């Protein structure tokens, strides 16, 4: 092992000198530190001597930051919030008639990055749904990679025949990514059949040029007056999950849960805001 590692490290240093200064991060991953090689060698020797189990070499798993385990490697966090609202909501972009609010399934994923391709996965899926003046937020997240297919099956079970998906940029990002993960884990699902309301485009049409940008955080602050405290920027979510997975810290993963929860709540509020705008514009008497 260490001989191979050392040899590879040296060869890759050659190729590295030949590569442009700034390759995609992690793509030309740093060569193993020379100091680490002997450590691995001795670790292997020890392992062989003690015929220790493989997982000895791995970090001690951290306790999950929140929720309960519903399957090996998958945790579920549930919260309910008072959300008094009319049973019907006007969403003319979907249907001329008012829609049962309980059909709306606001969802958002947190992923391992933006590199794209089958190597990017969702490690968290948050869903908000309304029932009888209560907004219930359910969040699934992985505490081990092996839990992915159970998490996807669980999420697929939340999709009802009459569900309407609500997202922000979900048509281009979250839904295709989840379809790929379903495919990879051979989990059946009805994502493609469900109507999907992606607020990004209506919001852009309405607010382009009004605010600096149309990111969800900007719109919720400017339009809905939501102020987040101690929010973990979305870009740091992958590192937060990795730190948890590697047994380093679960602090930021808890903040990812908070961030994701606020996102799906905002999606419901955005729906009411946009429906209100439509009402004003069309002068409908409700």
């Amino acid at each position: 092992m260490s001989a191979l590692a050392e040899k590879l490290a040296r060869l890759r240093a050659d190729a590295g000198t030949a590569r442009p200064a700034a390759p995609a991060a992690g793509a030309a991953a740093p060569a193993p530190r020379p100091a680490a090689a002997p450590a691995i060698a001795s670790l292997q020797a020890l392992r062989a001597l003690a015929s220790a189990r493989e997982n000895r070499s791995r970090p001690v798993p951290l306790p999950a930051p929140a929720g309960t385990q519903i399957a090996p490697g998958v945790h579920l966090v549930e919260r309910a919030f008072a959300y008094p609202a009319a049973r019907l909501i006007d969403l003319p972009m979907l249907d001329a008639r008012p829609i049962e609010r309980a059909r709306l399934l606001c969802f958002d994923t947190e992923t391992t990055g933006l590199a794209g391709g089958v190597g990017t996965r969702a490690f968290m899926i948050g869903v908000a749904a309304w029932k009888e003046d209560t907004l219930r937020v359910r969040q699934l997240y992985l505490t081990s990679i092996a839990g992915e297919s159970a998490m996807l099956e669980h999420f697929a079970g939340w999709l009802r025949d009459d569900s309407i998906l609500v997202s922000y940029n979900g048509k281009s990002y979250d839904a295709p990514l989840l379809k790929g993960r379903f495919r990879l884990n051979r989990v059946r699902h009805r994502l493609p059949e469900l109507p999907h309301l992606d607020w990004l485009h209506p919001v852009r049409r309405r607010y382009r040029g009004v605010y600096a940008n149309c990111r969800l955080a900007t719109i919720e602050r400017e339009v809905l007056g939501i102020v987040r405290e101690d929010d973990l920027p979305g870009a740091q979510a992958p590192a937060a999950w990795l730190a948890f997975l590697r047994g380093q810290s679960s602090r930021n993963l808890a903040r990812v849960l908070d961030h994701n929860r606020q996102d799906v709540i905002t999606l419901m509020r955005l729906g009411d805001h946009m429906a209100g705008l439509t009402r004003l514009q069309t002068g409908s008497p409700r």
Partner: protein
Amino acid sequence: MSLPTDSPVRHVTRVERLVEGWALKYGDRITGYFRHPAQAARWGEFPPGLSAGLREALARRGVERPYSHQREVWDHAFAGRHVVVVTPTASGKTLCYNLPVIEAVRANQAKALYLFPTKALAQDQVAELLELNAAGALGVRAFTFDGDTPADARQAIRVKGDIVVSNPDMLHQAILPHHTKWAQFFESLRYVVIDEVHTYRGVFGSHVANVIRRLKRVCAFYGVTPTFIMCSATIGNPKDHAEALLGEPVHAVTQSGAPRGERHVLLWNPPVVNPDLGIRASARSQSMRLARHAIRARLKTIVFAQSRLMVEVLTKYLKDVFDHDPRKPERIRAYRGGYLPTERRQTERALRGGAIDGVVSTSALELGVDIGALDVAILNGFPGSIAATWQRLGRAGRRQQPALGVMVATSAALDQYVVRHPEFFEAAPPEHARIAPDQLLILLDHIRCAAFELPFASGDRFGENAVDDFLAVLAESGVLHQEGTRWDWIADSYPAAAVSLRSVADGNFVVVDRSEGRQTIIAEVDYSSAAMTLYEGAIYMVQSRPWQVERLDWAGRKAFVTATHADYYTDAIDYTKLKVLDRFDGARAGQGTCHHGEVHVVRRVSGYKKIRFYSHENIGYGPVNLPDQELHTTALWWQLDQAALDAAFSNRQDALDGFLGAAHALHTVAQVRVMAEGRDLQKTVGSGDAAWFATRDLQGRGQWRGADGEPVDPADAAQFHPTLFLYDNFPGGIGLSEPLFHAAPDLVRAALDLVEACECNGGCPACIGPVPGTDNASGPSQAELAVGVLGLLGA
């Protein structure tokens, strides 16, 4: 030699008239003449179950009966057996794979993936498929999928394409890493067609073999085992090569049933202009004369040059003759890698339409790019292998008329060897294509990409390799995460983007024209040749127009150039230092030793020469200041101990000269042996610890230089252990030096034969390399010194 005059009286073609004229005037320059008679077609039958629709479509396209080899391929393909077919130019190759594919598409909604080495070939193929499809309203949907495919069309192609025509680079970078988007396509994938497999050798081939491993892994995930149909130009080992690429048994179909027109082939050696020094007239001047004659005889002519630089020089010379009147349409074009795609497509169209009378090209046109029929192929220099020679000669040839090919030898050793041994040229089997798919660096790159595509489990194999150690290395670098026996991709990166199939380094240089305030990209140069062509002061040519490199931004991979009117071109001077790191194996070699092992190579471009057009005199030098290029690779090397050297040579200078001559001869015979392109296998003489290295001065005498590059009298050097290296020019080696080590005694014997049998007087470029000014009045000649060293290394 029998010339065509002794053929029965009949219509004398323009080609024959041209050959007769040359024979009368330049008979002594023609060292070999072969005439391959026309060959009648051998027919087969259509398979019994062939659908009426496809049969009608073929009839409308003029195919009433298939050739025998086509039927053979179909039988294998229909039975699900992997097959490779060896196809000469214009032998109906595409029908070999289109017929079974179209049948499967129409009968079973099967899908097929076609891979071509270049985008241009892929586009040709789709055009042909669409014509066949239209001829019979077959309803088969074929699309190219390459870097030019717009994003909005990609989704439709994934879902609707029956036949997706792409290239290995796209498979590697765009399809496999997104395989879930292609799930429907993979679930029905029945055939994979890989054309021009002979081009997948060396580094490129080793990468492609690993991309195929990844493809098979993804196919297994979707539960399919497609049948592979491969096509190759003539090589010595089509079956073995196809099996090495695929990692499975492959059936070979090697007998073509297609008819061939008559072909005349001449081997041409430029006349000796200085018998004492063994100097011949340049191949360049001869090739230009032959091309002028052919074009004036209204024969469409292609000239193959060995380098991009020589393409530009030859194009300029032909344009000076045929395109000097700017009011008339252009008759001569250049074609090579590095030109922008639009420019290349334009030249291809002009060739097909017959608008151009002469084209000068590198190996870029050796492949099956559709350029229509040409009459004459002139090879300015031996392409390095018999196989490539026939591929280039095959570019000339029409159905009914005879074709002519001329191989003009340069003064290089390999060329002279071939041109003086016409029997070798005619009888030698074509060389073997070799790949080293388990080369560590390449393997690691593709295991990384494969881990991104699907998780690995401990104990899995990739090809024949156990992956565990590689996975551990990747986990160590943070891109994989291990849970129990499972290894998952975890990094936020896209590994295929960092792996280029065509070179070690992914960092092409762009050439930016800044003349008159412009900012235009005029060419791209790959990393490995940038140091040799884009140094500041270099003359860089495109379509024979000269630009001068003003500034080279090495880190930014840009060269800024301005148009110039120089009457010279530039040629880089480089040298190499080498250090032995590890000995894998060793043996006695005569009175010395031969070893195989790992070495560290440092290459430096130290300056350049300015060479005037036409006179080719050296009119000046310039310095170059570029970073050293480093390389860890495998090599084989010969050493003689001090005592043997002192006993055999009267002084160290003689011993050094002998080593340099022996290196030249050994490099020549080794290249022939491994079908290496010159730049894949390199030679050098040094001390083996990077402290000293040897070069030749302008008179061809050896110089012993220290680490600072300054020459020292070898007699005064503290240590003198000249060592002769042949090394793989690729990080980690590419599998050339090991077979050479095992054949080392044969190599020494062949090199000795080469030098001893050479007709020159004391050494020439054909045997021991350029030794222009050596005075052999007193003491042994350079050739005798080389024989001395080779004799000591022989048994």
